[in-house]
């Protein structure tokens, strides 16, 4: 196996987790920036439609590093999917695969189920829930909670902030309720 083939395999958690953790000191050392990604949505609002809303009236250009960071993530996603693509189906735990089969999800070739995440679904109830309502809850919830998985669960917990622990528990409780009750219901109804 050559190096490229080795890298193309799915990376284990004990490689990915520490690399993500190292983002925290990297951003601090190169520019005193706190790792957090939901802020990017706020900066987009502030730069495009501030509309006299206090939350969006600040000099977003001073925070432009965050927009460069998320642009980088988009490019990184493109590079990995284009040049380092794993030719095999994604890893899915057998119990999850069985469960998803019962929802009608049978295509495990890509990182997202192509049966749901496609443009044809946009103007269906399923599309409305998965893209529009789901996305809205991410943006509304993270700003209300003043951070997301990166700002609270990684940076906040790393910095021993107890409010971040409260937020992380709320994220997880919401996720468990949603995955166990809402998601099956959505597949059943629509």
């Amino acid at each position: 196996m050559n190096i490229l083939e080795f890298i193309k395999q799915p990376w284990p958690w004990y490689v990915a987790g520490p690399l993500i953790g190292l983002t925290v000191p990297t951003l601090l050392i190169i520019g005193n920036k706190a790792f957090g990604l939901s802020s990017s949505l706020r900066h987009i609002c502030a730069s495009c439609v501030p509309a006299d809303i206090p939350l969006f009236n600040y000099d977003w250009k001073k925070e432009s590093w965050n927009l460069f960071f998320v642009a980088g993530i988009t490019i990184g996603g493109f590079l990995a999917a284009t040049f380092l693509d794993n030719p095999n189906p994604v890893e899915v735990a057998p119990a999850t695969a069985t469960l998803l089969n019962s929802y009608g999800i049978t295509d495990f070739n890509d990182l997202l189920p192509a049966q749901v995440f496609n443009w044809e679904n946009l103007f269906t109830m399923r599309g409305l829930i998965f893209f529009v309502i789901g996305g809205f809850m991410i943006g509304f919830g993270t700003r209300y909670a003043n951070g997301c998985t990166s700002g609270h669960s990684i940076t906040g917990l790393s910095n021993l902030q107890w409010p971040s622990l409260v937020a992380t528990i709320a994220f997880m409780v919401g996720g468990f309720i949603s995955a166990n009750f809402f998601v099956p219901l959505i597949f059943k109804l629509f």
Partner: protein
Amino acid sequence: MKDIKYAIVGIMFGIVFVKAEIISWFRIQEMFHLHSFFMYGVIGSAVMVGMLSIFIIKKLKMKTIDGVPIALEDKKYHKGLIFGGLIFGFGWAITGACPGPLYAQIGSGFTIVIVTLLSATAGTWVYGKLQDKLPH
């Protein structure tokens, strides 16, 4: 361009997201059904490394490469952490993404996620509009 360095860190980060399949909708379902240790391992080891790094930075009173003392703001508690956190959690399990992975999903070719990102931006905007009417 002083901000290019952040784009480079972002590129590395995006590659990790895709290669460890963290942006996979399937991983999120596994996590919330306790079918796999993977995501817990990722988040847990990321926090351990982050915690150790911040401990060292504070202990050595490290400075940035430009010589500025490194400082992190404290997170303040308010009820919105719970209400907002739950709402985000609902959206997280449905979309299979938090804000960071949304960008990597788009980059990796799922262009439909642009709709999710626009809607997330709209959600942030509506929160801003309603901020003083919501319990905090």
